[in-house]
């Protein structure tokens, strides 16, 4: 068994982890090691062969694999970053600050001065949504479907229904249509879509794929392979309305009902949001323990990968600052006010910019987003067409921020 002391250990080499390594390496720490459990770095970007990535971070439109290549190239410029694939984090002893990693080379116990968690998210599986029926083959989560089609070059079926209007589901609706699969419907239980407006337009409307809002799947049937899916309309309390059932003969069901931050490995020692499962962090990316930082979809589910990399870079920078001079500034709460559903970060640390990411609780034609610190209004702007499916990013520079707790609210 090997033991290895490093300045910074990053768990996960996706968009957040690679960004974190860059952020840390730029600050000039000695050694940054990235451990990735998959057989290559890049995370989910590798299978997202559509474009729409990079407009913020690289100022040009890229596909997922192109975006991943770009960051990997930056990573390669830093000799102090070591990216290791097929490394599985088995255990973390937070008291001794030890991370036990298994790989084909054996067990390595890392002793990092700072740890950055960039473990991303997993898809909510079928069993998580209590759908009646049988358990045939032909039921896939959107990410698994995407992987088979895009990376393994395999077709899933001939007629498909998509459950959930999350972005990956919408993108798969288009992808499957282009490959000759008949996509008969996209079904969403909320009265509004779950994915970005641009994906609704480009992936569904452009291909005449019907979107059933306020509908849910009430039955999945098939002896061996999927044969039939039954949907029904929901009333205001999300109960299926009898008599509204529609039956679809399909051999494929693709589930896109949300992502869950992967935080269970840390649940015994980090503060985790009990509702979203995201690791709770400050504006520097610091978790509830001073030597552990977190960034990307393991903290909050972002709309754009650019934001993930950006927040990874922030976490990397401040983790390095912590390693170099035990940086631990004053910390203030960032609190949810009215109409705010999802809010990042949970604390503000002095000396950082405040990058706020929020989702409103309900769709609103217009609303004013306000960020207040005591009596000081840090930000106030009217936004049109607010929807829980569109994340809003607000950047407030350090120079504008004083001390005291911060409130974020949306006035209708």
């Amino acid at each position: 068994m090997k033991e290895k002391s490093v300045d910074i250990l990053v768990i996960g080499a996706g968009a957040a982890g690679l960004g974190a390594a860059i952020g840390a390496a730029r600050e000039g720490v000695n050694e940054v090691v990235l451990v990735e459990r998959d057989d290559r770095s890049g995370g989910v970007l590798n299978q997202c062969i559509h474009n729409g990535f990079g407009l913020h971070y690289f100022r040009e439109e890229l596909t997922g694999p192109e975006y991943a290549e770009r960051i990997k190239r930056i990573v390669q410029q830093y000799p102090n970053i070591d990216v290791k694939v097929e490394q599985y984090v088995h255990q973390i002893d937070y008291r001794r600050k030890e991370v036990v990693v298994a790989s084909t080379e054996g067990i390595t116990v890392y002793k990092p001065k700072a740890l950055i968690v960039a473990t991303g998210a997993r898809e909510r599986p079928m069993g998580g949504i209590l759908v009646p029926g049988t358990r045939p083959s032909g039921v896939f989560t959107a990410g698994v479907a995407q992987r088979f089609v895009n990376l393994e070059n395999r077709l899933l079926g001939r007629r498909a229904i998509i459950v959930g209007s999350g972005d990956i589901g919408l993108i798969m609706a288009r992808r499957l249509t282009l490959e000759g699969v008949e996509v008969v419907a996209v079904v969403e239980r909320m009265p509004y879509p779950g994915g970005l407006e641009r994906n609704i337009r480009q992936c569904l409307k452009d291909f005449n794929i019907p979107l059933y809002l306020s509908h849910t799947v009430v039955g999945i049937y098939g002896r061996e392979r999927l044969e039939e899916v039954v949907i029904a309309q929901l009333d205001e309390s999300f109960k299926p309305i009898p008599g509204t059932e529609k039956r679809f003969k399909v051999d494929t069901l693709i589930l896109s009902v949300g992502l869950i931050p992967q935080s269970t490995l840390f649940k015994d020692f980090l503060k985790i949001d009990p509702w979203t499962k995201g690791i709770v962090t400050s504006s520097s990316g610091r978790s509830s323990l001073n030597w552990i930082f977190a960034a990307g979809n393991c903290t909050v589910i972002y709309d754009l990968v650019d934001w993930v990399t950006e927040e990874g870079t922030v976490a990397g920078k401040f983790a390095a600052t912590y390693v170099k001079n035990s940086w631990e500034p004053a910390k203030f709460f960032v609190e949810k006010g009215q109409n705010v559903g999802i809010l990042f970060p949970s604390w503000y640390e002095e000396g950082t910019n405040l990058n706020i990411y929020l989702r409103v609780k309900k769709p609103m034609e217009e609303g004013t987003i306000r960020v207040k610190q005591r009596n000081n209004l840090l930000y106030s702007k009217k936004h049109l067409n607010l929807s829980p499916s569109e994340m809003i990013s607000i950047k407030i520079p350090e120079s504008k921020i004083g001390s005291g707790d911060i409130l974020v609210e949306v006035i209708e």
Partner: protein
Amino acid sequence: MRIGIIGAGVVGALVARELSRYDIELLVFEKNWDVGMGVTKANSAIVHAGYDDEPGTVRSKFCVPGNAMYTELSKELQFDLKRIGSLVLAFKDEELRVLEELYKRGEMNGVPGLEIWDRDRILSYEPNVNPEVVAALWAPTAGITEPWMVAMAAIENAIENGAKLFLDTQVLEIATENQRVKRLVTNKGEFEVDVVINAAGMYGDEVAKMAGAEFVPLHPRKGEYILLDKQEFGGFVKSILFPTPSVLGKGTLVTPTVDGGILVGPTAVDLPPEREFREDTSTTFEGFEALMSKALKMTPLIDFRASIKTFAGLRPESPQKDFFVGRTSVIGFFNIIAMRSPGLTAAPAIAKFIVEEVQEALGETFQKKSDFKPTRERIKHYADLPATVWDEEIKKDPLAGRMICFCNKVTEREILEAIKRGARTIDGIKFRTRAMFGSCQGGFCMHRIMKILARELGTDISDIRLRSEGSFILLGQVRK
């Protein structure tokens, strides 16, 4: 002597293993692509203490001895058995009377260690039980296991001792001559046999009819289940919690699984006997609602947002509500049918009994093999080893360090071992290794496992099935 066993569920598998001690030619026929995939796969996985069964029933005769046999069996065959004990909870004074009756019945059946607990004792042992509880019956010998693993382990051991297993092989006809079994006709050819043991689960009555032997009519009783994520809810309860039983059976229970998750179920809905219903493992809204309200009554803090899997199983029920076991008027034809609850618990004792029964009925004494090997080694789960030991294992075989299933920490070595022991499908890997059984339900690893299966079986990933011929996963290439 050539014996054919129809069905490789937990009953057929344990009978095969028991018979493999003797110098007999053993053929095991299973219509599914794998062992233990029928009734055995989907039930509460409880090794019952034995206080439920009315004295005088066949159930009461086999449950308590079967329970006791599990200790040695789990050591020899290396499957998981956890004797975590069970509590039958009473919430009303009337229910208290039922507990007392169960206690008496248990004593008559020879159940060891029964105790009546008061509210304080229950709540200090199980703090998540509804504080309105008034009393409970504690049965320390009750336990949990993985029924499919019992069947798989028993079959592996029987094969090691000479038995032959025929998968995807359905018995279509049983030929008799002068009221004596002669031949089994299957979709894979004909087999001459001297003895047939009917362990055909949900189809036990139909198989007996083929031979012209006595049977009890069977119908499926459906039981639905919800499994909660061990990552979220592990440790929520530490023993098996039952409500006070009613005419409908033992009721919906809340129990840990051996893997650490929490299982809620079953419901109990009687279905018609027609063939289509004997495969009807569909779950229902009504089922989910019943499970949730019943579980919430016993353990109000349970949270179904942590559910990761819902499923339904079928129990072969008969009008007598009792096992139908033993010789028939057709010489050489033996039934082990109507194996409703506690069939899993009783199975080892019934396997032992049927070996005696066959010898007695035929007036023969089987010769014991001198080289019978009673033990079977489990697939090693590396992540459970101390880190230093795991490190040494990886030095010997690097694949013991390549993690495939991230949620349940299953390495490529374990997947390969499962294939070596007969896994051919996704379910075959899943039920042997617990890969794809965790939080993500295969989201991260199914494609990796399909690639390993395809490589080892010398085929393409499009040829990999979930569990049967028709359960294909992929439909060939997107672009050639």
